[in-house]
């Protein structure tokens, strides 16, 4: 059974390239992907997760305002009965040259299960999902995806 993953760029951020490539990678790896696109608000994420029975919500942020944009996000999810959904966040999460370990800690405390920097390859996120959602390897890509899977 394919797992459903919700993707989106939060806030008023319009960076679209990374999430487009991530969408392709997740689909190729056998996930059902719902890409909410850029400039997605917290309520839109929650509604998307509810409507599609999401197993995981992946939040992207590249313009440096991730902390403000995700404040209260997990509270909202819990209220909507989605407290168990796996949540990741990735991108340029802080303005300036902060220590990433510190940034990771901040977002872990906010409730995100995993925190990735902007250099993360899609493969890394996929491997993490496979582990966190306890997906047997046979269920997803054992091989290089062919064009047909795109």
């Amino acid at each position, binding site marked *: 059974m394919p797992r459903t993953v919700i993707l989106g760029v939060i806030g008023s951020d319009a960076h679209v*390239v990374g999430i487009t490539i991530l969408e392709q*990678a997740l689909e190729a790896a056998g996930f059902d992907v719902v890409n909410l696109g850029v*400039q997605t608000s917290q309520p839109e994420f929650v509604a998307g997760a509810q409507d599609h029975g999401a197993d995981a919500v992946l939040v992207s942020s590249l313009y440096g305002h991730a902390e403000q944009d995700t404040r209260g996000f997990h509270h909202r999810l819990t209220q909507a009965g989605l407290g168990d959904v796996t949540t990741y966040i990735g991108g340029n999460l802080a303005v300036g040259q902060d220590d990433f370990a510190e940034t990771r800690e901040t977002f872990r405390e906010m409730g995100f299960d995993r925190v990735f920097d902007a250099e993360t*390859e899609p493969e890394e996120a996929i491997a993490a999902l496979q582990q966190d959602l306890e997906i047997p390897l046979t269920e997803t890509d054992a091989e290089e995806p*062919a064009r047909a899977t*795109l």
Partner: protein
Amino acid sequence: MTRDKRLPESELQRIASDLRDDWPTAEAVEFTEAVEYHGTLPAEKRFAEVLETADRPLLQPRAGVPRLRDQIELLEGLRTEGGADLLPTTIDSYTRDNEYAKAQEGLEEARETGEDTLNGFPAVNHGVDGCRELIESVGAPVEVRHGTPDARLLAMITFAGGFQSFEGGPISYNIPYTKRRDLAQTIEQWQFVDRLAGLYTEFGVTINREPFGPLTGTLVPPCIAIAVMVVEGLLSATQGVKSLTLGYGQVGTLVQDVAALRALQSLGDEYLPDDVTVTTVFHEWMGGFPPDEARANGVIGLGGATAAIAKPDKVITKSPQEFRGVPTMEANAAGLRTTRQLIDMLLEQDVQIDGIDAEQEFIERSTRALLDTILERGEGDVARGTIRAFETGEFDVPFAPSESAAGQVLPARDDDGRVRILEFGDLALPDEIREIHRTKLDTRAETEGREPSFKMVADDVDAISEGRLIGRPDGSNPAPSGGDD
């Protein structure tokens, strides 16, 4: 319903009068007086005239800071130290969202604290007089560059303020910039801008209009970019615009870039009415830059070399500090001079590269297929056809954030580095053209020993910033880490 028809005078008046309520500086706009004002400007500040009579590619940087004095100083620096032939005024992003009150706040903060809290020049807030002071204080023509989907008030004020060139268009400043703007509405808003430009033109003040060619700046296939340029050109021409500069963003492959610029000029001349003067502008690489000034200079160098061979009318330059965002005046001027040196060393050389004609023919054939579909969907009306073709995905822009675009097209480089289409979605390209793209990408895939897939796209998006053109998987030719890393 949105149609490609000239906006009636009465409608223009009505909209203008409504817009006057949007911000107090609109009060000062008086058309007849503005036409008279333009008449006082010397020949060297008439944008269209300078651009259209130049005998070599003119250089123009990007630049905008909130305060008037600073903006004048910045532009004069770029002109005298960078050798810029044409100057820009880049507008702040609050103005782009029509948030003039927030822009005002930012401007006042900048004035009080001396710190630039806006990322551009809020021309609406500076008003007609502020704009005129800018135009009078700098020694070259100035263009408004912005990214504003609804730029009607900005156009009213900057045209009255003495600017004679205005970037953007309903597709190029909507689809790549924002998520939820309705395309039909944006087309109508730009009909106002173009009609206003057309009216000035009829009164002897040629306003140059420049659709934004690079779109999303990320591996845009030339046929898509050129189709957008022709569509926006047609929409502008309907409103009476007579000076159009069509744009194209460098993809980094010499043959394809030269071919695309030639196709752009050729299709522009063909599709647009005879009384419209069509010029072209080449944007140096708009994708990710290497995080290293020395390598960035290499990217700029290739841009300059390409411009020297393709000979567009204008080149928008990049700076070696591109990777860190807004460059200093000095870095911006350096990008201008590096480009100028390459152009002036190569311009007089006779460099004829094999394969340009074939690539140009392929680009033109593909662009025609898209334009034919658009005109068909609109039953001859380009506005209506554009809206419908975007709805069906028959017209699409890769990596567009807009909900008005299907966003199904994925580009990738072929084995020669030229940008091809990996995923077409519903893009209106016939099978024989699709087959050529597929074959080219299969050849690359074979070279790399992998299947054509989104991984190529991901690798290609990062390749130039990592020091190469094609995102090969083997990690061969790795870039040495630069001193600036």
